[in-house]
C-alpha cells in the first residue's frame, strides 16, 4: 500500500506549482554571513562607556534582522498563511508582555 506505484507515480510535491527558492536561500545565507561579520565588529567599535546604548540598539537590531530572515525565508513564514505566522509570533507577544512588566517595575523603583 505504501510502496510507490510505478505505473502511476505520485506527483512531486511541487507539481510545478511551487517554484524553487534556491537563489533566495543563497542570498539569505550570504546576507546572514555578512550581518554576522558586522556583529562581531560592533562591540570593539562601540566599546566606550558612553556608546553602550548605541551598541545595544545596533546589536539588537542586527539580531532581529537575522531572526527575521531565518523565519521568513528558511522557515517559509513568508509563504505560509497568516495563522501559522500568528502561532510563530507567540514568543514575541510574551516578550512584549515581559518587557512591559519590567518597565513597570523600573518605573515603580524610580518613583520610590
Amino acid at each position, binding site marked *: 500500500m505504501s510502496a*510507490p506505484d510505478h*505505473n502511476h507515480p*505520485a506527483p512531486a*510535491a511541487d507539481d510545478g506549482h511551487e517554484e524553487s527558492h534556491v537563489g533566495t536561500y543563497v542570498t539569505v545565507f550570504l546576507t546572514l554571513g555578512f550581518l*554576522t561579520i558586522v556583529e562581531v565588529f560592533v562591540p570593539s567599535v562601540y566599546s566606550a562607556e558612553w556608546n553602550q546604548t548605541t551598541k545595544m540598539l545596533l546589536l*539588537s537590531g542586527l539580531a532581529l534582522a537575522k531572526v527575521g530572515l*531565518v*523565519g521568513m525565508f528558511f522557515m517559509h513564514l513568508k509563504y505560509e498563511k497568516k495563522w501559522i505566522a500568528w502561532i510563530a509570533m507567540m*514568543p514575541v507577544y510574551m*516578550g512584549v508582555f515581559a518587557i512591559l512588566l519590567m518597565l513597570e517595575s523600573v518605573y515603580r523603583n524610580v518613583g520610590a
Partner: protein
Amino acid sequence: MTTADVAAAHSAHDHVPEDEHFGSATGGKVAMWMFIAQDGMSFGGLLVAYGILRFSAIEWPVPSEILGINLTAFATFLLICSSLSMVMAVEGAKKRDQKALVRWLAVTILGGIAFLGIQVYEYNHLVHAGIGFAESAWEGQSVNNLFGSTFYAVTGFHGMHVLSGVIYMICILLGSMKGKYTQGGISYSAVELVGLFWHFVDLVWILVFTFIYLL
C-alpha cells in the same frame, strides 16, 4: 487492489486539502509550529531572566573579555551554513531527489556535530579558567557567580536542542536512505518538520550569541 485503487489511495494521502486558515500546511507542520512557539517562550524566559539578573547586578564582567567571540562567531556561521544545507535537503526531498536529500542532510548533521564539538571545547576551556556553574573567577579575580550560572544555563539548554536536532536528523537520514521521503506528494513533510526544528535552533542561537556573548 487494482492499480487505479492504489493511485486513488495515493492521491488521497499525497495532498492536504486547502484549509481556510492554514492553507495546505499539514497537521504535523501546525503542531511543529506550536511546539516551536512554546519552546521559543522557554528560551525567551531564560533570556529575560538573564537580562534582569545582569542589569540588576552591581558587578558583571564584560562577556567579550572572557568568552571567545571569534570562535563562537565561527560556530554561529557553522549553524547558518547548516541552515542553508537543511533548506537544500528539503528542496531535494520536494524534488524527489534522494541523493541530494541524503547528501545535504548529512552535511547538516556534520554542521551540528561540529557546533557541539566547539561548545564542548569552549566549556572545557572556561571551566579550567575558573568559570564554573556555581562559582566564577577570572584571572585570579572573583566575578559575579551568576555570570557562569546564566551562561551555562542558556547555552546548555540550547546545546541540548542542538543534540536533539542532530539525533532527530540522523533518524530522518536513515529513513531518507531507504527512500521514505522522496516518494512524491507530501512524503517529504517529515524532512520539512526536522528542517523547521533545525532552523529554530539556528534562530535561537542568533539571539543567544547577541545577548550572551556580544552585549
